[in-house]
């Protein structure tokens, strides 16, 4: 078992002919992900690393009806259109890697996706991986290994860092989800937690948060209310970040006293989650919970 992606995941790559799209198509194929087709308007009929390219999502789906997931590498200006195209074609999971999409656009397409029953992961995210089954994203595959730990993260690089630390200690992961660093994202902590709660393979969950927003506080509330019952280990980046400054991610900013490190840690601790002071403590904390 796993969540979101597994060996039955068949992927469409939107923006496959671009630099990032084609580079990561190759890496995903090498990892063993089943990529059925790609889309780049105007490039239909060509091929990228042996994957057929179509002009539209509908055409790709007509030829490859088993596609159930899309990954979007389309540049920011055109990415919202690509996402709507995937939603309207009936795909139930769309992973948006693209960085720099205007927040109003994300607001509209994430709400639209919800009304159509499509899960959006991202934007501005590293994607989703179920080690040994499918990698739908840009993460380095070799840092992951299969096992009982689920990970939900707002930070790409930190996810790799922490997964690698776990892997080196012989602790594998069920599914790792990078939800993205923008102020508005599709899949949230709590929605992903509902999925891990139902997944029998996941025994422990790691939440990698950062300052800004209130997703960590909401996760804490979910644990308090008994809607998430597995042990949780949390790491929050930005303990020493000054208030009011945007720390790289547009989402990582402390506004009006909300979203600071202390309030997140307080809420999670109160809910019974174990807090790691730095990423390198996580493996030893997790191993005690397994």
């Amino acid at each position, binding site marked *: 078992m796993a969540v979101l992606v597994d060996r039955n995941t068949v992927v469409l790559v939107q923006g496959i002919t671009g630099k990032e799209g084609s580079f990561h198509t190759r890496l995903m194929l090498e990892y063993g992900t089943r990529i059925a087709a790609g889309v780049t308007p105007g490039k239909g009929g060509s091929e990228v690393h042996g994957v057929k390219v179509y002009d539209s999502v509908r055409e790709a789906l007509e030829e490859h009806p088993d596609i159930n997931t899309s990954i979007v590498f389309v540049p920011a200006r055109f990415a919202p259109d690509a996402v709507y195209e995937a939603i309207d074609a009936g795909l139930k999971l769309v992973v948006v890697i693209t960085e720099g999409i205007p927040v109003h656009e994300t607001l509209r397409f994430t709400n639209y996706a919800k009304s159509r029953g499509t899960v959006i992961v991202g934007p501005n995210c590293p994607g989703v991986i179920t080690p040994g089954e499918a990698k739908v994203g840009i993460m380095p595959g070799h840092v992951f290994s299969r096992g009982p730990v689920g990970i939900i993260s707002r930070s790409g690089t*930190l996810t790799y860092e922490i997964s690698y630390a776990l892997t080196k200690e012989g602790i594998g992961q069920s599914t790792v989800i990078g939800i993205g660093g923008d102020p508005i994202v599709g899949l949230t902590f709590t929605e992903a937690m509902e999925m891990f709660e139902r997944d029998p393979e996941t025994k422990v969950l790691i939440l990698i948060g950062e300052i800004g927003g209130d997703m960590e506080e909401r996760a804490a509330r979910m644990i308090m209310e008994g809607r998430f019952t597995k042990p949780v280990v949390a790491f929050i980046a930005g303990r020493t970040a000054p208030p009011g400054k945007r720390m790289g991610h547009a989402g990582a900013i402390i506004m009006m006293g909300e979203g600071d490190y202390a309030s997140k840690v307080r809420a999670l601790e109160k809910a019974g989650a174990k807090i790691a002071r730095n990423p390198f403590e996580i493996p030893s904390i997790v191993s005690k919970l397994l």
Partner: protein
Amino acid sequence: MKLYEFEAKGILARYGVSVPRGVVVEKGEDVRGKLVSSGLTPPLVVKSQVLVAGRGKAGGVRIAKSLDEAVSLVELLFDYPIKGLKPRYVLVEEAVEHSVELYASIAIDRSARKPVVLASLYGGVDIEEIARERPESIIRYHVDPYTGLRGFEARFIAKKLGLKGGLMQSFASLLQSMYDAFIDYDAELVEVNPLTIVGDRVVALDARIIVDDNASYKHPELAVERIEGGEVSEWESKARRLGLAFVELDGYVGVLGNGAGLTMTSMDLVYEYGGIPANFLDIGGGASAERVKKAVLLLLEFPKAKSIFINIFGGITRCDEVARGIVEALREYGGKPKPIFVRLSGTREEEGRRILEEAGIRAFDNPVDAVIEAIKAAR
């Protein structure tokens, strides 16, 4: 991207919001000529156009009883720094006699994933202060991004504030105009504070609009040069021009990482091991050698950083590109190079290490070792 007050008012006026009659004077223009031909009637309000908070308290807003006084105040304000920043524009407006000051804004509520309208009868101070002093006075209303803010919803908010009759209608139409501007300009914030009441109409005395940087390509007309001083340091604006995410801090260990989370964690690590970071510098995902070179050069020049801690975990970022960027930066840098401690892990790490080692730079695989060395070297 923060817009100047006169730009925000200009936009809102086009959407039907009442604003005081006024004229903008740019530095170097004939102030008297411009004021005379504007036909404004004193008393006048003279307002320094700076993109910093607390302008009024800092003396950036003055009252002129005559045109002559207004001319000398405009000239005074051009040379009057607000938080270290002199304005390029000064706005002169007819004073609006008023006794009440209200507040209205539209922003995005991240957790609700919806636009939110905030309104209060007690404006004139910032929303944080209203939230502290009179939290019960704030009306908070979420808008469905599909339907937008409809008339009956805007009237509902106005009514809830206690406004009646024509005033209720006028406030409601103000909110709808603000909402339309909010959408059309991809704004993170549209704020009118204070707004006042003249007869049964509301008038915007001050306005702020912040446009999402990611959407600025849609609004080429806003591409005037913006001096964001005061809250942005010299080195921060330098980094911004290079397209780098950089925040200046108070310490002495330069910090460079890839990804916001890892870079923040690198700062946290510097603190944990007894040092203080000089900055936050995130090269982002998939940085080329060229971009890394620019970032490293910036830290080599940045005087607060006495040593440099580079923390890279390669995913989409390739360690070999990073290593090449570091080596090129050191080659290009004229001065005595600062001690650099690099932690490289992930995609193409072996090649990255080889490049660094050939250039005589030690590569660490444990960030804790690198951070301890960087702190030691900075002292």
